[in-house]
């Protein structure tokens, strides 16, 4: 094995970043993985199940998390962000800002004592604010690295120089308030971007009532509502009165294929709304679901049969007709007004819970990261990829994979990630 091989920096610790890192590490190339959050796992960790196999998401992600965390060729930098880049392909110098975790990584065994005692209650981003977390927290139960992190914006010590209960209760003295942010300089031969995506906030689409009607939720909020590690422990309850909903409506293309919001198609909403409808049915087979769509897009392997199975075995009704107006009755039941284009009747239908499949949008910091790395972005802030070498960015030696370049589903992100690893390996082996 050539020792003098340059390493590759993988920015982003979601499924794409993990797959790219594992491929490179398995082929003997060292990887510096940069993850902004306290744990790796990215968006996929928030999902309950994944299509088309309906595996539970964490069950197929956890082994990869563990493998990635323990792999000798992968160095994991969590709570870290890229600050600056110099040099060129084969010899990049990257400055990383590693935020202090205030927990000694070697000591903490994720026993959870500090969490019990911490007085603070903060909206839990991971659970889409459906639940509270403490100032000392772990992103999610199976998070890797499985150690706590102190959120200095909300911790009473940092805000009011008080409390420090966690320090007192910790039997392994793992808390260390004196830790400082540190800057690290890394020299790498190639860079892979796998920074993932954010969710489009449907507040701006007024007539759907998101934010005004409690029982109109986004698809990712639904994933948390129904997930075993979610706020209701796997029992699907609706936010307004914790009633277990029996009639669900999924609305596709919310914000997508829309010149006024995101003109592009987010690729996998038709599939994941079917999946979510299936899971709901599995929880309670008295549930009836309707999916409102424009074009039902299921072109991947086994996808069309998956949709047919949804229709035949999971009581899903597919209605062609985009919903533009939602009202609410006095029991907070959303009332959908839609045209069923098949019969061209315009009707109002009452549902217990409405789920909006909102578009995938680039991360808020995609623009600044693109500037730091000197790579081009498209009109919507996705990183611009070469048409016939989709893993190549506009800059030599910097590669792209996953939803940071275009909305795509998990199978494609995994393929993209291995593809980016191959291109990066080409550069490393040439250096």
């Amino acid at each position, binding site marked *: 094995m050539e020792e003098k091989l340059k390493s590759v920096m993988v920015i982003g610790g979601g499924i794409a970043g993990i797959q790219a890192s594992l491929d490179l590490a398995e082929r003997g190339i060292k990887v510096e993985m940069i993850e902004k959050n306290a744990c790796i796992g990215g968006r996929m960790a928030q999902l309950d199940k994944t299509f088309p196999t309906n595996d539970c998401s964490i069950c197929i992600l956890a082994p990869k998390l563990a493998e990635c965390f323990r792999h000798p060729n992968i160095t994991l930098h969590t709570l870290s962000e890229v600050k600056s880049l110099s040099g060129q392909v084969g010899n990049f110098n990257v400055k990383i800002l590693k935020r202090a975790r205030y927990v000694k990584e070697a000591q903490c065994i994720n026993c959870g004592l500090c969490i019990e005692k911490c007085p603070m209650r903060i909206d839990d981003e991971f659970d889409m604010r459906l639940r509270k977390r403490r100032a000392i927290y772990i992103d999610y139960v199976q998070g890797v690295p499985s150690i706590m992190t102190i959120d200095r914006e909300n911790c009473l010590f940092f805000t009011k120089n008080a409390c420090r209960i966690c320090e007192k209760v910790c039997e392994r003295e793992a808390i260390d308030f004196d830790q400082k942010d540190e800057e690290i300089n890394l020299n790498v031969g190639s860079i892979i971007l796998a920074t993932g995506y954010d969710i489009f906030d449907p507040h701006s689409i007024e007539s759907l009532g998101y934010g005004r009607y409690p029982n109109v939720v986004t698809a990712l909020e639904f994933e948390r509502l129904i997930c075993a590690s979610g706020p209701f422990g796997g029992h699907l309850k609706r936010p307004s009165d914790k009633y277990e909903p029996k009639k669900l409506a999924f609305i596709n293309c919310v914000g997508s294929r829309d010149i006024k*919001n995101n003109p592009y198609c987010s690729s996998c909403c038709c599939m994941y709304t079917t999946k979510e409808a299936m899971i709901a049915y599995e929880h309670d087979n008295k549930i009836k679901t309707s999916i409102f769509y424009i074009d039902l897009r299921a072109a991947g392997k086994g996808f069309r049969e998956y949709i047919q199975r949804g229709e035949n075995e999971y009581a899903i009704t597919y209605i062609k007709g985009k919903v533009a107006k939602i009202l609410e009755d006095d029991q907070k039941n959303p009332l959908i*007004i839609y045209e069923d284009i098949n*019969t061209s009747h315009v*009707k109002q239908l009452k549902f217990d819970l409405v789920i909006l499949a909102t578009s995938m949008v680039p991360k808020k910091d995609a623009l600044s990261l693109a500037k730091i790395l000197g790579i081009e972005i498209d009109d919507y802030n996705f990183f611009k990829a070469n048409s016939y070498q989709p893993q190549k960015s506009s800059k030599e030696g910097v590669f792209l994979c996953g939803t940071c370049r275009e909305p795509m589903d998990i199978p494609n992100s995994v393929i993209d990630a291995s593809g980016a690893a191959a291109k990066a390996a080409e550069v490393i082996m040439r250096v």
Partner: protein
Amino acid sequence: MQIVDFKFRNELIKEDFSLNYCYQCGTCSSTCPVAFITNGEYNPRKIIEQSLLGLKDLLIKEQSPNVWLCCTCQMCVEECPQNVFLTDIFESIKNRIVLLGEPYPETFKQQAKSVIENGLAIPLSQPIIRRRDQLELPNVEPVNIKEINKLLEATGFENKIKSQEAGK
């Protein structure tokens, strides 16, 4: 069976290019208050589809769905994800119905006659003038009708709106 009329379709597209962008998603018919009240009998999406197919008979002669039921509230235009200007398209269809002498609601003709004769949709009647004095409102110098008629002659408004009752 309806035959697609590409010539009429291209005419409509030339006048409102945004018609092309429609992919028939149903947002307009979902947000349209009249479509909801008439359970889809009045249907903006269907009128757009007929325009895309250039179905001149349905649009101009049979007028089904009846384009005159559009209450011009512009909700469809605000919500359309492809920026199709439906209300303008419906307006140009109605203009064609009038121009081609097809039947249209009487009330529009009455208002047009009043504009031709008085320059106002609602001329000042005596009781109203008395009320205006009671309310100490200034009387506003009336429009000179000759100038209006000259202008309307230039645009040929009068014979445009004369629907051929005789012919029907």
